[in-house]
């Protein structure tokens, strides 16, 4: 059961990473990056490390907000 759950989460991580890399809009990439840290949080819980999962949840939100603030000073669209 745990193995199946881990497999689903890890496959989701790979898909999200590809979506981040090939995103046309940087804002989309940043928001999907938030989902990346969210799935990582679930992985930590499955692996039995709630301390690390808690840190990941908080830091994921904060780093996303920092990225969004920085996006105001660069061009959002990629080539």
């Amino acid at each position, binding site marked *: 059961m745990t193995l199946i759950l881990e497999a689903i989460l890890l496959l989701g991580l790979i898909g999200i990473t590809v979506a981040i890399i090939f995103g046309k809009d940087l804002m989309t990439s940043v928001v999907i990056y938030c989902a990346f840290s969210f799935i990582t949080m679930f992985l930590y819980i499955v*692996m*039995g490390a*709630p*301390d690390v999962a*808690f*840190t990941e949840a*908080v*830091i994921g*939100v*904060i780093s996303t*907000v*920092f990225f969004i*603030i*920085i996006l*105001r*000073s660069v*061009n*959002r*669209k990629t080539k």
Partner: protein
Amino acid sequence: MTIIMLIVVITVPFIAFDVLPAIGDPESPPNSHVSDYYIEHAIDECNSPNMVTAVIVDYRAFDTMFETTVMFLAGISVVLIMANKPRRRIPSPGDFKRTRNTGGTPIYQTINKDVMISTIEPLILIYAMYVLFHGEVSLGGGFQAGALIGMTYLLDVMAVKRDKPIMNLTKFMSAAIAGLGPFIYALTGIICFIGGGLYLQYNKLPFNIHEAELHSIGITAVEIGVTIGVAGTIITILNALRERISFDDDND
């Protein structure tokens, strides 16, 4: 070159899966030497029900101290990089072709700021205090509490549009607050010298109470230091970014 990289990236994990031990295997090398000592002696030596806290701030207190210092240095370096006024004018957001956001309203108009200030932010702060002072009993600790306090400031800045924020912290003041955290941590270690102990040896703190309470006081003092350091660092980075980038100038 790209193909070689692809082959390495694809094949190395499959080899590593066979070599690495299974999760939670009691016979694996990481679980068979030092972990046994921690599991057997953590409650007697550190008087902390949470073994993670016992390892982080008691057995490996030096490690955590310099981690806090690294956080402080990260905040300082962001301030130094962003405070540098470039001679050439950097392109402002208005120089690019603006993509008008027609899909929504700004965040300070979508969020009810009365609810945010009166309900959500106090709840987050209370939870941060709970996480901080129950760090040695339940999960959590100084780092998480500091991040929650920093997130409260961040929500306050983002959700409420006003010319003067409630706490008017400049980036240098918040950097000074961030530096206070490692200072408190190091001071706790130095106080242990007075009782004749080693650096960060909590049971030699110069108070006349039981050893378990001395451990509790020492761990709490250290965690308060970590909390102040992390919260100050997050506020420092946010203030340094806000001075360079104005995001209240228009409605998107």
